């Protein structure tokens, strides 16, 4: 895929109007503020930046390995399909294999996300992404004239894969967690891994800032300033630090997987406590 097309997809995916449910998630910020942690900072902006830094760091370390593995798996499936050509030999089997890989990743993410608030938010945003793909990014027959036969073929295979995965979510065979769905969606759209990782972290940070605006802690202008000047280096740092992390599920190398160095982990214990306490707030406007 050429750079312009990728940039165009980035623009589409970073639209804050996308119906992915991220506007109802504060990723623990609401709980953080309600529990009085923000008031120990000198200003609301400092408190928000501090929260974004901790939250993003822990999220990158724990979720990015899943984005990367889901993305790699779908990319591999996609390129295999192209090499196989049109015969369709072994297609069912490779479809089953990729679905199993995604299901395993999803199961591990569920086992590693040990509070019900984060799980709930992750699942609702994950399934929203799958819906977004089938309803918002698929090519309607009326627009088929804008593509060649080969890309239509590729699109329809990706469509089948994501629809099958979504069906499994409906049947409650899988949970449909956000990092796995994001990795699969971006790979299906042809976005490269580095950009998919970067955008995922950016969107996590931006949704925290928009939550901060809705909570009336920051004004919309102040949030933009933070987004440009403070969040950019944070996202860049975490994207670099975590780009090679893996879950270990897809790596069957002989020497074994160095889980402590490369595997997912939480890095902010207070964040886990705050997320777990979200539902204990007397009133709340976000679902996480």
């Amino acid at each position, binding site marked *: 895929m050429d750079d312009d097309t990728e940039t165009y997809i980035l623009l589409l995916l970073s639209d804050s109007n996308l119906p992915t449910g991220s506007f109802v998630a504060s990723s623990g910020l609401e709980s953080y503020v309600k529990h009085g942690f923000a008031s120990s900072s000198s200003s609301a902006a400092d408190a928000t930046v501090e929260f974004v830094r901790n939250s993003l760091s822990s999220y990158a370390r724990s979720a990015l390995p899943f984005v990367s593995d889901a993305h790699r798996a779908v990319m591999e499936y996609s390129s295999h399909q192209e090499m196989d050509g049109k015969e369709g030999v072994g297609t069912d089997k490779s479809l089953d294999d990729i679905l199993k890989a995604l299901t395993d990743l999803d199961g591990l993410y569920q086992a*590693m996300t040990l509070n*019900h608030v984060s*799980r709930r938010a992750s699942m609702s945003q994950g399934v929203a992404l799958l819906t977004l793909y089938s309803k918002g990014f698929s090519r309607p027959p009326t627009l088929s004239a804008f593509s060649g036969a080969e890309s239509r073929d590729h699109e329809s295979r990706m469509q089948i894969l994501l629809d099958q995965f979504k069906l499994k979510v409906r049947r409650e065979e899988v949970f449909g967690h956000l990092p796995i769905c994001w990795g699969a969606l971006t790979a299906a759209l042809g976005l490269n891994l580095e950009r998919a990782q970067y955008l995922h972290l950016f969107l996590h940070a931006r949704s925290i800032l928009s939550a901060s605006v809705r909570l009336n802690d920051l004004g919309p202008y102040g949030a933009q300033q933070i987004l440009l000047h403070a969040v950019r280096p944070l996202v860049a*740092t975490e994207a670099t630090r975590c780009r090679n992390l893996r879950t270990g599920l897809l790596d069957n190398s002989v020497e074994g997987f160095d889980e402590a160095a490369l595997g997912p*982990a*939480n890095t902010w214990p207070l964040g886990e406590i705050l997320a777990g306490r979200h539902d204990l707030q007397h009133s709340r406007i976000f679902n996480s």
Partner: protein
Amino acid sequence: MPEPQLSHITKLRAGGGCITVSILGEKAVFSELSSTYPLKLLSQFIQDTRAIAYLLTYGGGLVSGDEIGLVVNVQLGATLILLSQGSTKVFKARPGKRLASVKSQHLAPLTLHPKHPGARTISTRQNLDFHIAPRSILLLLPEPVTCFRDAHYRQSQRFHIQGDGSIVILDWITSGRISLGEEWAFSHYYSMNELFHNEKRIAKDVMLLDKEELGDHLLPNRSLRERLQPYSCYAMLILFGPEVQSVIAAISARYDKISIFKGVVVRMAGIETEMVKGWLREALYGLESIIGVDVYRRTFP
């Protein structure tokens, strides 16, 4: 699944150990209790089907390069209570290259970087594997881990629960030797707890607390202390299985809905370790009927 048993004796390495508790007649017995330096196991006493063992380390702490590998089997119908004597102290890590030259000192700051395989820190490790048979109970209630300045510690615990086995796991860490002014001054702490029920993974918790080393200068570096204060103790408690349902119900009632996999995961933070201890003593009161009044008071004085 066949229970891993006595065969471990032959395989014991430095820091290795094995505990097997089984039921003989009506009474628990340690059918195996073996360990090698620097790990030491102490069987305290046996009361009906309950057995208590203490995990100790010679000299009261673990140094860089120590690697504890313990296999624990709690067999059908037995209850094992594993405690530690005092907190697990982890001493400062030394750099991997132990050359007497000044040059090697320069390697030390790089040692945490996975991208520099040549400069490895020798960490302190503990790997514990637990096998909990049907109708048996494991209570792992050690004192918290205390990592000293520049310590590099990795702990992995895997729990294989069969059928209606039950477990209580407490995993906690303090900020260091506060009396010496150490507060979150260690360099690396990694703790992994993975639970399998009938071979299926039901929970996996990984906590990583390490110094951030940022590659560029866009951001000011921030100490671990800044990230973890004002608390000086973080704890995690996992309860699972039919024998601890009443305790789970009591905790769940206090905190609304925190049960997530038929078991429960509770996380705590305290300004002082004693506050966390106090909370645990209260929240786990229901365990008194399982482990007995004496043991309960000893564990939560």
